[in-house]
């Protein structure tokens, strides 16, 4: 891993809430073009890590660099420029409920790329199609969408500005297996087409096997191991063993090798 290919660098991250320490001396590197899956038990701070990296949360101490810059020390203008280079898909979608799906996707295009409404809507329609939503979903309001459609619409919005890094918080949770598999495929295609770097918090073992290049395990308040899936699965740590070699882990592994064969 050469130094210049690292797009996200986390060093000595500490996050404490009251007396509860979530992260302690957490280190993590993410290099350009890889899909990193972040796993860990509930409450181990996966989403907190994501929020620390995108700058929504000020860490108690430690450094987070994205594209070699510390977001928290940048001026607001520079920060906005950097933030434009990544897209975030929140766990619940976080679509703006007073806008239609197309308006949700068109908003960053209008605000940042200075397109007019018609041009932005035109591009938004393509993003909608890329995310696998039917054309008539564009005029619906988020409140009327199903869980899976919300995920896809939120992905379309995250992709609106053709970001270099995509942050996904449990993207396949709440999707049916067919939809989840299509999402995995979509992610791989997008990565290949855009040389996208993906930081993905997930619980979905199938997604890990299908699309992740590396897997980072958060446990005991730090990144226990970040490596290829085979190496991680071979780690003797008891939590990792029960995660990857429990009944669900075995099923996903069998499915993945079955597909490969």
């Amino acid at each position, binding site marked *: 891993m050469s130094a210049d290919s690292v797009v996200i660098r986390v060093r000595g991250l500490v996050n404490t809430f009251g007396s509860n320490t979530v992260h302690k001396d957490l280190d993590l590197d993410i290099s350009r073009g890889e899909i990193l899956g972040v796993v860990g038990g509930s409450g181990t701070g996966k989403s907190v890590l994501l929020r620390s990296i995108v700058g929504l949360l000020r860490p108690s101490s430690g450094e987070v660099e994205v594209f070699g810059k510390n977001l928290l020390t940048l001026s607001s203008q520079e920060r906005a420029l950097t933030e434009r280079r990544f897209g975030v898909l929140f766990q619940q979608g976080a679509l703006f409920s007073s806008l239609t799906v197309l308006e949700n996707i068109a908003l960053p295009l209008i605000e940042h*790329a200075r*397109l007019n409404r018609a041009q932005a809507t035109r591009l938004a329609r393509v993003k909608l199609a890329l995310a696998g939503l039917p054309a008539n979903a564009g005029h619906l309001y988020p*409140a009327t969408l199903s869980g899976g459609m919300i995920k896809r619409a939120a992905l379309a919005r995250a992709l609106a500005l053709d970001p270099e890094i995509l942050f996904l918080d449990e993207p396949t949770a709440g999707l049916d297996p067919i939809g989840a598999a299509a999402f995995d495929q979509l992610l791989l*295609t997008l990565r290949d087409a855009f040389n996208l770097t993906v930081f993905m918090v997930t619980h979905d073992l199938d997604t890990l096997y299908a699309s992740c290049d590396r897997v980072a395990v958060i446990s005991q308040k730090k990144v226990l191991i970040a490596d290829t899936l085979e190496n991680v699965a071979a780690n003797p740590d008891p939590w990792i063993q029960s995660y990857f070699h429990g009944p669900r882990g075995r099923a996903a592994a069998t499915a993945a090798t079955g597909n490969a064969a």
Partner: protein
Amino acid sequence: MSDALVLQSAPAVTSGDPLDTNPWPRLYLNGHWTLSEYQQLLKQTAAPTQTPRSLDASGLKSIDTAGATLLLDLLGAETLGALVESATGLSDERRALLQMVAQSMRDREQPAAPEHRWGDGLESLGVLTVSGWQQLMQFFAFTGLTITSLLTLLPRPWRWRWTALVAQMQQAGLNAVPIVALLNFLVGAVVAFLGATVLAQFGATIYTVDLVAYAFMRELGVLLAAILLAGRTASAFTAQIGSMKVNEELDALKVQGLSAIELLVIPRLLALVITLPILGFIAILSGIAGGAMVAVLSLDISLTQFIGIVQQVPLLHLWLGLAKAPVFAVLIALIGCLEGFKVGGSAQSVGERTTASVVQCIFVVILLDAVAALFYMEMDW
């Protein structure tokens, strides 16, 4: 950048090729096809006059979905898909991107945006009228539902929710005391000044005391308290119940076999029915106190004199004023809660319903107060 998209017809040499392998006309794709160049590209490119048979992208420096979309608009999904298949000078990633865009937009009919027609205004007026009527019916239905729930609860004291009731009484009643008292004190002072200004011309300054006492006992005390409650508490009811609806908490109550009316509406309703008369009474006292302050400080009426005159006001007027309080309380609580139940799934809807609830409550309170004033007068009370 003006050569971003160039269509070249067949050079003379290759014109002898068999038709199916003839690569001409050939489309040349050059430069940066990205979002930042999108405006420029839009101006500089036009759809090719002939359908190209091959694509050369060796001059292409960068492309993203915005550029791909523009290309798609210029060429059409079918043509683009076919061209990309055999394109030269296109890296695998870019080929994948273009193919994905072409693929996803193929056979995709865009739904037409709704047209604007003459008569739309008339239609929306009709929709407004019908929905107004439906809202009224909904209010009556909700009132009936609440009354039946109240009646079924009445003989079952073990199902009375004392904690919720007391909590609501504190929030809607006790916490509102300072603002209600202050507001009425100020209005009382204003009324006294007004009375003094007008009555001094007739040498009847002393009647300012009567004016303040009558005004606050019969009308202003309870009216001002109710209006404050409409702004302060009805909005809170709507927002609380509305957010619960957005979070599917109301659905969770329902599937657990619990009644939202019993749990949420009745404690709020009873709390207001109990507290609004008390708040009204406090409002009357503060209003009169405000009047007393003005009388003592600037009208040369002593406090004993003031109290003496107030004591001569028949008690009937106090009861007439306070009698309106429970009615106002019921209306405010019911409208506030009902608007909460009407919230749709979005944050915007919570805001809309909260506004509607406050406006309706204030309107209903003032309307009813006017009707009551008319009624009292006709009855010679």
